[in-house]
C-alpha cells in the first residue's frame, strides 16, 4: 500500500515547552485516520506542521510525497482543510464560495463550472446555488464545507472537529460523505471529540502530553486496553496526562 503521510520523530518546541514530542506514524492512501487527544495534547500543533503551516523543530515528515521542510507550498496545494470554526463565507452565495475556493487553488473556469454543478447535484442543492451560505441550515453548511474542502480533488483532507454541534442525523450523513471520499481514494485525517466517531476510523492515534501514546485499529485498541468502547480507551490514556489542558 502507498504511504501518503509519514512522520518520523516529528517534534515541535516553543521555547522550553515541547508541544509535539517525537511522533512517528505512517498513513495509507485512502485511510480514515482518527487523530485523538485531550485539549492541549498537541494535536493542533502536529496538524499545523503536516499542513505545511508550521516548521518542525526536528524530525522528518512527508505529506503526499512532499517534504514538510522544503516543499510546504506544494503540500498546501495537495491538501484540503476544513474545521468547524472556519469553513465557508456566510456572505457569499453557495456558487460564489465554490468559485472562490476553486480560484484560490488555481482551478480552470471549466473545472470550476463542472465541479460546482456536480457538487450541487450530489447534495441536492441545485435550487440553493444562488442563496447566501449564511441563510442555510447548519447541517447543510457542514456538508457543503466538506465538499468545498475537496473541491480541488486533493489526495488528502484534514478535518478538524468537523461535526461539533451538529445534530445526530446530520453527523451520520457527514460520515457517509467521508466514507465515499475514502472509497474514492482520498485520505482522511480527522480529529473529533465524539468517541463513537473514533469507531468509524480505520485506525486511531491517541496523543497524550505531546506523544502518540497509542495507535491501532479501534478493535485492537479496545482489546489492548481492556475497554468496552473507545470512550473507555480514551479515558484510560488521557487520564495519564500531566500537563494542563488547553
Amino acid at each position, binding site marked *: 500500500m502507498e504511504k501518503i503521510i509519514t512522520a518520523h520523530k516529528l517534534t515541535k518546541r516553543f521555547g522550553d515547552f515541547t508541544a509535539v514530542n517525537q511522533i512517528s506514524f505512517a498513513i495509507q492512501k485512502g485511510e480514515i485516520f482518527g487523530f485523538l*487527544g*485531550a*485539549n*492541549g495534547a498537541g494535536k493542533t500543533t502536529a496538524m499545523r506542521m503536516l499542513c505545511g503551516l508550521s516548521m518542525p523543530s526536528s524530525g522528518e515528515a512527508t505529506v503526499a510525497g512532499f517534504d514538510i521542510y522544503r516543499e510546504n507550498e506544494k503540500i498546501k496545494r495537495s491538501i484540503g482543510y476544513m474545521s468547524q470554526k472556519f469553513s465557508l463565507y456566510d456572505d457569499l452565495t453557495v456558487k460564489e464560495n465554490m468559485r472562490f475556493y476553486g480560484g484560490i487553488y488555481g482551478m480552470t473556469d471549466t473545472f470550476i463550472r463542472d465541479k460546482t454543478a456536480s457538487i450541487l447535484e450530489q447534495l441536492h442543492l441545485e435550487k440553493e446555488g444562488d442563496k447566501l451560505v449564511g441563510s442555510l*441550515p*447548519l*447541517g447543510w453548511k457542514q456538508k457543503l464545507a466538506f465538499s468545498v474542502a475537496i473541491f480541488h480533488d486533493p489526495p488528502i483532507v484534514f478535518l478538524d*472537529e468537523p461535526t*461539533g*454541534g*451538529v*445534530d*445526530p*442525523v*446530520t453527523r*451520520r450523513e457527514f*460520515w*457517509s460523505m467521508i*466514507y465515499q471520499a475514502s*472509497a474514492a481514494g482520498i485520505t482522511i485525517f480527522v480529529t473529533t*471529540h*465524539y*468517541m*463513537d466517531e473514533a*469507531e*468509524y476510523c480505520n485506525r486511531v492515534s491517541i496523543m497524550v502530553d505531546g506523544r502518540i501514546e497509542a495507535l491501532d485499529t*479501534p*478493535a485492537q485498541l479496545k482489546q489492548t486496553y481492556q475497554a468496552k*468502547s*473507545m*470512550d473507555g480507551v*480514551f*479515558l484510560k490514556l*488521557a*487520564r495519564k*496526562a500531566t500537563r*494542563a*489542558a*488547553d
Partner: protein
Amino acid sequence: MIRQTNTMNAVEVSHLVKTYGKKKEVLALDDISLVVGQGELFGIIGPDGAGKTSLFRILTTLLLADSGRASVDGYEVVKQYKEIRNWVGYMPGKFSLYPDLSVAENLNFFATIFNTTVKKNFDLIRDIYVQIEPFQHRRAGKLSGGMKQKLALSCTLIHRPSVLFLDEPTTGVDAVSRKEFWEMLKRLKQQGITILVSTPYMDEAGLCDRVALMQNGSILSINTPQRVVSEFRNELIAAKSQKMLQLLEALKGYEGTENAYPFGEYHHVVMKKGFGMNGLKSYIDKVSAIPVDMVATEPDIEDCFIALMKDE
C-alpha cells in the same frame, strides 16, 4: 443579603416565541413551555441552531421574547428583570470575562458588582478555584481553554446565585475535562443551586435529573433521561460485520427496517412493529455473503433523538 426561600418553581416558561430578522423570518423558539423545579439539574440537549442560547438569553433578561411568558424564581423576566439579574448566574458559551484583568481581579470585580466579597462565598468556589489559584496573577486572556472555563464558572458563582445558567460549557472540551466538569456540577447541585445547562452532546443527558430535547426551536421531549429511553417503543438491534458500509445498505433494504444508521462500532436497526431480529437475520444472510453479528440492544438518548427528529 439573605435570600428569601420560597416553594415556587425555579424556572417557568410558557408558550415562548422568538423570531429574528426584519420579516421575522427566522423562528428561533417555536412555542416553548417548560418548568424547572428548585434544586433541579436540568439539561437542554440539542444541536446548534436548536434555540438553546435564545432561551437562556430570554431567561437571563438579556433578550426579549416576541410572545409568551417566563419567570425565574417567581420573578417575571420583563417586568422584574432587575430582581432576576441579582440572583442568577449566567455563563455564556463564548468566553466573556475581561482578558486584560488578572484571574484574581476578574473574580474580585464580579464579587464587587454583586455587592459581596470573594471571602464571603469562597466555600462555594473553593474546589474549582484552587485549580487556577497558582495562576491568579496571570491575565485571563492568557489562560488555557480549560482554565478560562474554570475561572468563568468561579465568577458566575461568586455571588451565590440561586439559579445557574450554563450555555454549552462543554462544547469543544475533551472527554476527560467534560467528565470533570459534570462532577463539579453535581457538587454544586448538592449545595442547592438550580442548574440549567445546555449541551450538544447527547451522552451528557444521562447526567441530568431531567432533560429537554430541542431541535429547530421546538422541544421534542421533556422527561427524565430514563423515561426518554423507556418511551422508545421499537425493537432495536445492533449489527456489525467486516464490511460495515455494505452491511448498512443491506440493513436498509429489509422491509421490516424502520431506520438504520451507524452507531459506534455497530449499526443500529430500528425495527417496524411486527418485525424482529430473526426475520432481519435471515434476510441479511440471503442478500449478503458476509457473516453478521446481531444482538438486541437498549436505545440510548441519541437513538431517541434520531427517532424524535424523524417523527417531526
